[in-house]
Structure formats: structure tokens, C-alpha cells
């Protein structure tokens, strides 16, 4: 944190004045812009990831952003390139692993073991790169746990371009991807290219993870990818509503996290993750209570038995 933020950050219990105070600084405006773009993209991608039970693959794609960024800094280019190159390459690698158990849901068995092996090795490579760089250790912390300070307007534009591209592509393949995720056998029978969609989705997920990593850090990217989506899917079983909720929750926890980090001078990743975690716990408690409460559903006799 900077002394600049320290000097002025006092919470006045007047939300309008507080927001105005916070947004007087261009770096905070850019942080909100970047955070919002990331939350929207991660909310949508994460929703599909949770539905497809590919959280582990998503986690791996996020983690390999760390060696990517460290390697990029080592060779002297922008860390942004490192994030994207490594994440997308890892996505292609994970997608190339042959699925065990034909017709089964992806994400099981062999795939998980191989993904984990690659993840552990690349994480170690990241530490090697930082050791070779012999630079300031603060860079490692921000790669792992994120930083919202010093996001430039140019970076915001890059984030926006990536997010729009990813979301447009996902919109185009959305329905067949949903079909292939829920019901791969029937989808294949209808002529949906299940394998190709799986690869395409992982590449898009890699791009979204690379994007989110730059805000939350590679270790806390899960806060934005998995938590809003998991919370939304606990809250409702309607796909469209659930997807919208995932985005709304993502934006809400990002804004709350940024505000808290600004005024309390605490770490951003912790603040965002805490709000997302609280939302998830509340959703689970609410779901358990709703499931236990007596329902007033009209009981019907199954018609098939009467025929």
C-alpha cells in the first residue's frame, strides 16, 4: 500500500462522499474499471467451469500464469504477455490429454492427475524464474496475490478487448457448450462437436484466468472464477438467472473488496475473497433452510403408470 492512500483513506459513513473521495484518484478509477471487467468475464467463464466440474483445470490455468509472468519479467517483456501465453498454452495442453472413460463427464481420473503434475512443475518453474531474476520480492507477492495499484488506462483497454473477445466467442458457442456439458452423449448424437467445444472452452478459460490473475493474483483468481459461480448455482437452478447472478455477485464482491482495501489499507485479494466466501456460506445456509422447509408443491400421480 502507498502512503498516498494512507493519508486520505478515512471512512465517513457517507457512501456518496466516500465514493467521490475514492474516485478522485485515477488509479482507483482504473482499479474499479479493471475489477469490473474482470468480474464480468470471470463470472461468466466461471459459471461454465463450475457446471462442467472443471474447477481444477481452471485453477491450474490460473496458477501457470505465475511462471508465465515471472518468465516474462525475466526476459524483459510485459508480464501481461507472460500471463496470456502460459495460460493459453496450458489450456491446449490440458485439452490434449485424452479423456479416460468414454462418454464420461470431463474432469475425472487421469486428467486430474496429469493436470496436477503439470501444475506443480510449472509453479516450481515460477519460483526458479523469480530466483534467477534476483529482483525485488514485492513483485512476487503481487503476481501471487494481486495488486490494484498502478493499473494504467492502457491496461484497462487491453483487459476490455480480451473480455469482449472472450465473451463474444462464448456467446457464440454458449448453447452447444451447455448441451455438451450437461449431456455429452445426446449432444454428440445431435451433431454437436463435443471434443472441439471442450478444447475451445479451455482456451477461453485460460484467457479469462490470465486476465483475472492480473487483478487478484494467480493464487486468488479462484475468488472471481469459482466463488460467484458456485454461489449463483446454489441459489438457483435456472441457467439464465444463475449466470446473471454469477456476474452480479462477482461485481459486488469486487467493488466491496476494492472499497474495503482502500479504506482499511488491507490486502485486496483477502477482502474480495472474504466477501465471496461469506456470500457462498450464506447461500449454502439459505439453500439448506429452504430445502428443509415444508413445500407446498401440488402432488400429481405419474401419468405414465396409468397408460
Amino acid at each position: 500500500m502507498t502512503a498516498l492512500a494512507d493519508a486520505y483513506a478515512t471512512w465517513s459513513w457517507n457512501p456518496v462522499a466516500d465514493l467521490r473521495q475514492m474516485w478522485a484518484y485515477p488509479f482507483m478509477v482504473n482499479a474499479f474499471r479493471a475489477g469490473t471487467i474482470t468480474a464480468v468475464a470471470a463470472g461468466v467463464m466461471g459459471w461454465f467451469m463450475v457446471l462442467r466440474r472443471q474447477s481444477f483445470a481452471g485453477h491450474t490455468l490460473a496458477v501457470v500464469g505465475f511462471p508465465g509472468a515471472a518468465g516474462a519479467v525475466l526476459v524483459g517483456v510485459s508480464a501481461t504477455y507472460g500471463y496470456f501465453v502460459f495460460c493459453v498454452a496450458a489450456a491446449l495442453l490440458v485439452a490434449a490429454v485424452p479423456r479416460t472413460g468414454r462418454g464420461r463427464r470431463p474432469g475425472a481420473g487421469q486428467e486430474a492427475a496429469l493436470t496436477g503434475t503439470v501444475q506443480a512443475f510449472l509453479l516450481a518453474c515460477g519460483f526458479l524464474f523469480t530466483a534467477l531474476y534476483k529482483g525485488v520480492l514485492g513483485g512476487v507477492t503481487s503476481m501471487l496475490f494481486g495488486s490494484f495499484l498502478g493499473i494504467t488506462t492502457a491496461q484497462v483497454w487491453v483487459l476490455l478487448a480480451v473480455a469482449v473477445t472472450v465473451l463474444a466467442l462464448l456467446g457464440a458457442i454458449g448453447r452447444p457448450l451447455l448441451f455438451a456439458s450437461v449431456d455429452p452423449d445426446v449432444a454428440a448424437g445431435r451433431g454437436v462437436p463435443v471434443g472441439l467445444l471442450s478444447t475451445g472452452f479451455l482456451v477461453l478459460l485460460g484467457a479469462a484466468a490470465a486476465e483475472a490473475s492480473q487483478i487478484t493474483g494467480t493464487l486468488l483468481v479462484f475468488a472471481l472464477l469459482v466463488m460467484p459461480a458456485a454461489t449463483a448455482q446454489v441459489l438457483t437452478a435456472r441457467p439464465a438467472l444463475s449466470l446473471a447472478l454469477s456476474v452480479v455477485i462477482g461485481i459486488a464482491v469486487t467493488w466491496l473488496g476494492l472499497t474495503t482495501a482502500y479504506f482499511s489499507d488491507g490486502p485486496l485479494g483477502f477482502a474480495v475473497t472474504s466477501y465471496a466466501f461469506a456470500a457462498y456460506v450464506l447461500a449454502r445456509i439459505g439453500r439448506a433452510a429452504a430445502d428443509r422447509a415444508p413445500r407446498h408443491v401440488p402432488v400429481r400421480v405419474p401419468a405414465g403408470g396409468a397408460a
Partner: protein
Amino acid sequence: MRDAAVRVGGRTLWSDVRLDVGAGEFVAVLGPNGVGKSTLIKVLLGVLPAAAGEVRVLGAAPGRAGDRVGYLPQRRSFDASLRMRGLDVVRLGWDGDRWGVPLPWSSGRRAAAQRIADVVELVGASGYAHRPIGMLSGGEQQRLLIAQALVRRPRLLLLDEPLDSLDLPNQAAVAALIGRICREEGVTVMMVAHDVNPILSRLDRVVYLAEGGAVSGTPAEVITSETLTRLYRTPVEVLRTSDGRLVVVGQPEAPAHHTDRHTPPVPLVVEGEAESAGIPRGASGGERA
């Protein structure tokens, strides 16, 4: 629908299979485990190519008939944690294979909702279609999946062991539902079955697959001691119980690797060296390839 002439020639599982199925017929595909019953369905679906011979489905090559073919794969069930309503799963059968984002104001939206409500009503699932599908019982899920296969008004319905993993009352109810759909909607049904008895009274024709070939005809023609003995080249006996159920004794196992199967709990006389594999299996169901 013109008569679908299906001739499949494969080297590995079966070959020289000749089969013609007429419009609106209810056909069961029977045979021992691992003989390639599901493979036959996948060839008809166009997911697997036929190694030799010619296959025509609804007058087109397999996989070209598009939404005129409904398919229900063999499966256990949906994951209990899958948070999607039954209605949404049925809806995937309606437009799940279309690219792009549906426009909320498009005219097809109301028609889609109406058709989905109709087909859910047809299978008798209206009472629970709005609940998450992972929380429903096997019989309820199976009804919704039949609705999904039916939603685009197919002319041919390919069902792979739809009665598998259901208890006996649900087997009877789902069998009755499929028979009713075949009769009232005029849909041709081709159903892979393990046990012919729940659907015996509704069948127009059975196809009995064996290693090497197949016979087809009415149940009375095919499920006889003489026909099956000729097909398997080993003594096979068909018995009829007092309540009209058929029991096949002495049917050889295809060279599949199923060592975990249960033997039927009926004290049957096993002919020759062949392993006993009675058709009726009641509620017990083992793993199948």
C-alpha cells in the same frame, strides 16, 4: 417416413446384419451382454461408422437425419449436485445444438415454451420438471430424458436400455409410456433391452443379435427354441412361464468381459457348456459395456 432399410456390416462385433424397420413400429434389440446392441444404435445415430455395408436411416445416411431422430443414451443418472431444472434439460433437446445467443424477444420463444410444456405433460413429468434434475429419482429423470428425446417431434426414437436401473413398477410405467408414444404419436421406436418381458406385449418386432449375425421378426417367430438354437449354433431353450413371461435358457455369452454379473436367481437347467443367461433379470442390474 419411407421404410428405413438398415444393413450393417461390421467385422468386429457383428456382420451381415440385415434389418428393415417400418414406420411406426416398436422394435426391441435383444441379445447377450457385449454383443454390440448399443453399437448398433450408435451406428444408426451416425456417431460410429459402419465398417462395411450400407446403412440408411429415414432415407438418409446416419447422422444426416438430424432432428428427426431422438436419442436416449444408456446412462446411470445425473450428478446429484447438478443444479439445472428438468425443464432446462428438456429445453437443451429443443435448441441446445444451435449456435449463438437466443434473443429474448424472438417469436420462437413462446412456441418453444409451449412445446416443452406439452412434451413434459405427455410423459407425465409436470409435477417435478421445475426441480433440479439431480434431485429427482431414476424413474423421474428417465421420463424427462424421454421428453428431451421427443421434444423436436422425431420420427425415429433410439432408446438404449431405458428401463435399466429402474425398479419394477417404474419399468412397467416407463415401458407403458414408450408404448403409448409409439402408438399415439406414430413414432418408430427402436429400443435396446436387456429384459424383453416388460415390453413384450407392445412389441411389433424383435431383433436378436448374436456374434456374427442377427434374426428379426415378430416375438413369436424369433424368441423360440428353434430360431435361437440356429442363431447361436448351440442348444438354447425358450420357456414360457405361467404368467406369460419368456425365459431363455442356455444362451451363450458373447466374448465380452463381464465376470461380475449375477446368475439368475431361478434354478434353471443349463444346456451343454453354455453359460446360463436368462432374459428376465428383475431389478438386478450389473455393469454393462
